[in-house]
């Protein structure tokens, strides 16, 4: 039994002849503790797929199972980090991270401490009292990841989280994500259209076709980390995956 299973998911918007199909048929299995990247061109339904796994969208066909049990709507065992900056603007960084704990009824002192600890792991000590708009884009996404981690989810869903930060920040954030992933041992489902990013992060890469999305190929990557030190292998993988995408 796989940890997280996406079984024959299809998603159509609207109905009748005017309906558009976002996802045709997607099946994938994520192992516990694995970092899986879903790679696909813009508009292939990657975001839709993630929203379905998060329980924010209902699939037209198919189902999602976590530990063999079908998911019921959304829940804090599957937290999502969004592509756009999506922090609560009226809460400080620390309060944002503590938000999920507050929902569970944790007391103010305890959750402040928890938020402080996680923000520290993300390299954001001393920024707890700033509001989101006072932080840089990269910092905001780190706070968003910390917020999603704080409730101790079973699966962390990331929807192109680094798409809107500059290239240098992106590299640092990717390295930090890997460090956090190893430290917390979370199962991660990461969506991107960036081949390089997929290669740097993934245990396995699932390539989706253009809209309507279906699984084109699945690769297991055996390049040791840190992967930046294995440029030749990265390059050959990049070529292979690019070919795969062009054919699709």
């Amino acid at each position: 039994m796989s940890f997280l299973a996406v079984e024959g998911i299809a998603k159509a918007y609207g109905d009748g002849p005017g309906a558009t199909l976002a996802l045709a048929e997607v099946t994938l299995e994520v192992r516990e503790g694995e970092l899986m990247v879903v790679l696909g061109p813009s508009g292939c339904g990657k975001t839709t797929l993630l929203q379905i796994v998060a329980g924010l969208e209902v699939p037209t066909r198919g189902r999602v199972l976590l530990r063999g049990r079908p998911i019921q709507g959304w829940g804090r065992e599957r937290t999502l980090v969004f592509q756009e900056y999506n922090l609560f603007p009226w809460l400080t960084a620390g309060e944002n991270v503590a938000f999920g704990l507050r929902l569970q009824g944790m007391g103010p002192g305890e959750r402040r401490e928890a938020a402080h600890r996680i923000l520290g792991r993300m390299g954001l000590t001393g920024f707890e009292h700033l509001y989101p708009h006072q932080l840089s884009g990269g910092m905001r996404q780190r706070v968003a990841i910390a917020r999603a981690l704080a409730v101790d989810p079973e699966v962390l869903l990331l929807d192109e989280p680094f798409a809107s930060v500059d290239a240098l920040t992106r590299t640092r954030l990717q390295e930090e994500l890997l460090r956090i992933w190893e430290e917390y041992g979370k199962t991660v489902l990461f969506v991107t259209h960036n081949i390089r990013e997929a290669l740097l992060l993934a245990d396995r890469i699932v390539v989706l076709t253009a809209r309507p999305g279906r699984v084109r190929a699945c690769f297991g990557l055996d390049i040791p980390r840190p992967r930046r030190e294995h440029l030749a292998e990265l390059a050959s993988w990049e070529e292979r995956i690019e070919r795969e995408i062009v054919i699709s």
Partner: protein
Amino acid sequence: MRGLPLLLMVILLWEVLPRLGVLDPVLLPPFDLVAVRAGTLLTSGELLLHAAVSLLRVLAGFALASLVSIPLGIGLGLRPGLRERADLLLAMLRPISPPAWIPLAILWFGIGDRPAVFIIFMGTVLAMLVGVLTATQGVDKRLIKAGFTLGATRRQAVWLIVLPGLLPAIFAQLRVGLGLAWMCVIAAEMVAVRQGLGYMMIQARNLFQTDRVLVGMATVGVMGWLLDLLLRGLERRVLRWREGLEAHELFGRGGDR
């Protein structure tokens, strides 16, 4: 007090124009005479009594209207099904001006405070309701989604995401509503009451005491200003997070381009 020079200029015109005979001093008594009249009304206690009565009516009507319009506006804003059912009625009630409710208010509530409070309520609740409703429709859906995946129930999402997100709009509506309440109270007090600034003014008009009318108007102005100041102070405290986010920071002072 950067607003003071403009105010002083208007007062100066108010003083000079009737004195020079440009305006008839009977129709517009000069400022100093009105000020003297205000002084005697104050020392006799008459002005304070009328002002206090009007203030209480404003606060009562405004509080009732806020208690109804804010929850209802959020509810209708989040439930399109309910909103569609309410739209027609709201659209037809809105054009009815507050004084139009006076006859019914007197028939239903007799004379005294209650019809006045009712008229203020009717004159403010709809505008605030529509304002809150519109703002609720504009709340960022993505923030709610983020809350859901962190484990929020729908109720928690309303209290911890929708409501704080709406606070800037709610404050704007409170200020609009408070202004409207002052407009309504004078109209409401012109009939069927024996106290209040509106009563004082309509009495004065009947006796052709324009100075007393002007004292009444000025009193409304000053009290309205003070209450608005209070609301704005509260707003600044509650919405401290908005500092650094507001559009006016890009315009205004030092804008040399």
